């Protein structure tokens, strides 16, 4: 039985299973941005970009780029049938106004109350930058965070209280990492799934707050061999 943590691609693959058919979804920088490659067959997702697109398709093929049609990461993309363009205030009317079915963001830390910190590493030089994450975090009907379970130095990123500058408070509904799927509930952090080969106790060891663990916590289902 494998004891490998998930790859970033596998986290994205697992997270993509959370997307509802026909849903309007915003994907943030980092791992979330990989999710569009893993939309389950038969599902149509209308990907939202805060620069004024609903209905983003795959990245543009080399040689077919239109630099007026880029995503929030500046990457030339395409649109699918049924797409619409609008201005940036209308795009954030969608984020802040509670119109996105799901948003998925990366994060440095998520607290057990659902606070998220994803825009600034304390002590780093430069101005930092916020971008659309605050509006998206506050407004999405269901906010999912995709991230590695632990920082490079092993520090837990699922924490009792965030120590990094906050993006928004009490808004994350689920966390998908290379070790687990965790729901943030009124009772606390509910361990919904573990990575293949890992036990709930092992996941708990890498997590700062106490996890609620039921008798049978299933393993995540991923395509054989991953990517």
């Amino acid at each position: 039985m494998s004891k490998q943590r998930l790859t970033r691609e596998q986290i994205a693959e697992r997270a993509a299973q959370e997307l509802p058919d026909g849903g309007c979804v915003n994907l943030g920088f980092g791992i979330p941005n990989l999710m569009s490659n893993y939309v389950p067959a038969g599902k149509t997702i209308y990907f939202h970009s805060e620069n004024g697109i609903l209905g983003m398709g795959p990245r543009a093929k080399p040689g077919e780029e239109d630099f007026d049609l880029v995503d929030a990461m500046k990457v030339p993309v395409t649109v699918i049938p049924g797409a619409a363009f609008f201005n940036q205030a209308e795009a954030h009317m969608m984020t802040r106004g509670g119109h996105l079915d799901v948003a998925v963001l990366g994060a440095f830390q998520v607290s057990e109350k659902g606070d998220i910190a994803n825009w600034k590493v304390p002590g780093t030089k430069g101005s930092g930058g916020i971008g659309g994450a605050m509006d998206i975090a506050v407004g999405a009907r269901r906010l999912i965070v995709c991230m590695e379970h632990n920082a490079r130095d092993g520090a837990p990123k699922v924490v009792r209280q965030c120590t990094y500058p906050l993006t928004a408070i009490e808004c994350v509904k689920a966390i998908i990492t290379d070790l687990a799927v965790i729901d943030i509930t009124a009772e606390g952090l509910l361990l919904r799934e573990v990575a293949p080969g890992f036990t709930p106790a092992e996941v708990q060891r890498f997590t700062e707050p106490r996890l609620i663990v039921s008798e049978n916590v299933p393993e995540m289902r991923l395509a054989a061999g991953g990517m």
Partner: protein
Amino acid sequence: MKNKIYAGGDEVVADVPDGASIMFGGFGGAGFPNNLIRALARRGTRNITAISNNCGSGDNELGILFKNKQIRKAHASFPGPTANHFQDCYGAGEIELELMAQGILCERLRAQAAGIPAFYTTVGVGTEVAKGKEERVVRGKRCILESALGADYAFIKAWKADRIGNLIYRKAARNFNPLMAAAAETTIVEVDEIVEVGALDPEVIITPSIFVDRIVQVPGR
């Protein structure tokens, strides 16, 4: 994927419950969801809170709902000189009315749609509509505080919808419809024509599909 297309007006309003709050698009005779309104009259939903620029024109537009005593409370800017059924109910004390400036009605709807709980405005300062509202000086100007306004449903009218609910309108029939579509929990649109997904140019879509829940194609105004 969830189907948004309903067979007709009666089907699309069949679950609108007593006590519902409903926004109705339309202005100056253009862009009214008249088929939805008539379906609601047939259904007989009562104790409605209505949000609409005006309050009907004879038996037309919202008139039929006031005539049937289906509306308990109205938020409007200009009930209108031909809103006789509304005026009868209002005169008899059967209806609660919140009257407001038209642009503030628009802005409150947009605030709801955009997740802005409240805003300050100079409109209404020193007038009857300021009564009971917080007043404060912002950037040297006397302002009053206005809050977001939304509803359980928007009943709107568009020209064309594609099958997922992207909408375009005709001329001045656009008016309040895009605002209400975005400010409702559930948006129901009647259209002249339903087209295939991809048939509308992404550059000219006025209401993106994210704001639309149910679509009916119905003939006539």
